[in-house]
């Protein structure tokens, strides 16, 4: 079974440029998360989807960040324009939404963004 796939793995851009990250979750996983992980810190939630609905985007900086999950499968996270402080690793995770709570998040390898 394929895991969570993210691309690109690395991205270097200049400030004020746009950037987009893509995530394909594990097949059948209804719930999809985007996390931001700053250097030396734990992941912090940006947005959580259940199917195509964003059920929690309270931590997403909506002035410059946007996300979509069309058809409830893969998802895209966009930053426009990027700022120096956006340099981080962007992690995508998925989990099945079933009656049995496994409680496990399955993470991709992340997309490392460097803003110059």
């Amino acid at each position, binding site marked *: 079974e394929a895991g969570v796939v993210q691309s690109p793995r690395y991205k270097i851009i200049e400030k004020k440029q746009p950037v987009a990250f893509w995530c394909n979750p594990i097949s059948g996983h209804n719930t999809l998360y985007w996390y931001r992980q700053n250097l*030396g810190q*734990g*992941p912090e939630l940006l947005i959580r989807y259940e199917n195509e609905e964003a059920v929690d985007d309270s931590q997403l900086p909506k002035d410059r960040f946007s996300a979509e999950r069309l058809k409830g499968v893969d998802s895209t996270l966009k930053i426009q324009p990027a700022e120096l402080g956006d340099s981080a690793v962007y992690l995508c995770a998925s989990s099945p939404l079933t009656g049995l709570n496994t*409680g*496990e998040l399955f993470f991709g390898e992340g997309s490392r963004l460097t803003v110059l």
Partner: protein
Amino acid sequence: AQSVTQPDIHITVSEGASLELRCNYSYGATPYLFWYVQSPGQGLQLLLKYFSGDTLVQGIKGFEAEFKRSQSSFNLSKPSVHWSDAAEYFCAVQHNYGQNFVFGPGTRLSVLP
């Protein structure tokens, strides 16, 4: 609001030595508790989880963790560390099924040969 603390930013142990990583949480009720490991350049992988029942839980790679309600702690341990255990370890809580996960800041483990 929920919070997770991991008091040790960085721990160094010798290969073969025992290990304990600390985790404390603040929440009124007992949340679901997790330990994840992150190797360099990789995503996070679940080591173990606690929902209810036996307060000592076994995980993968020889790790175990003990839930202590009175101390609001969920410490991770391993009797004998291997060089391949060098990684970043994150404690996480989820206060109810379907709710968001809150991660601690992580503890970086270095293993000396």
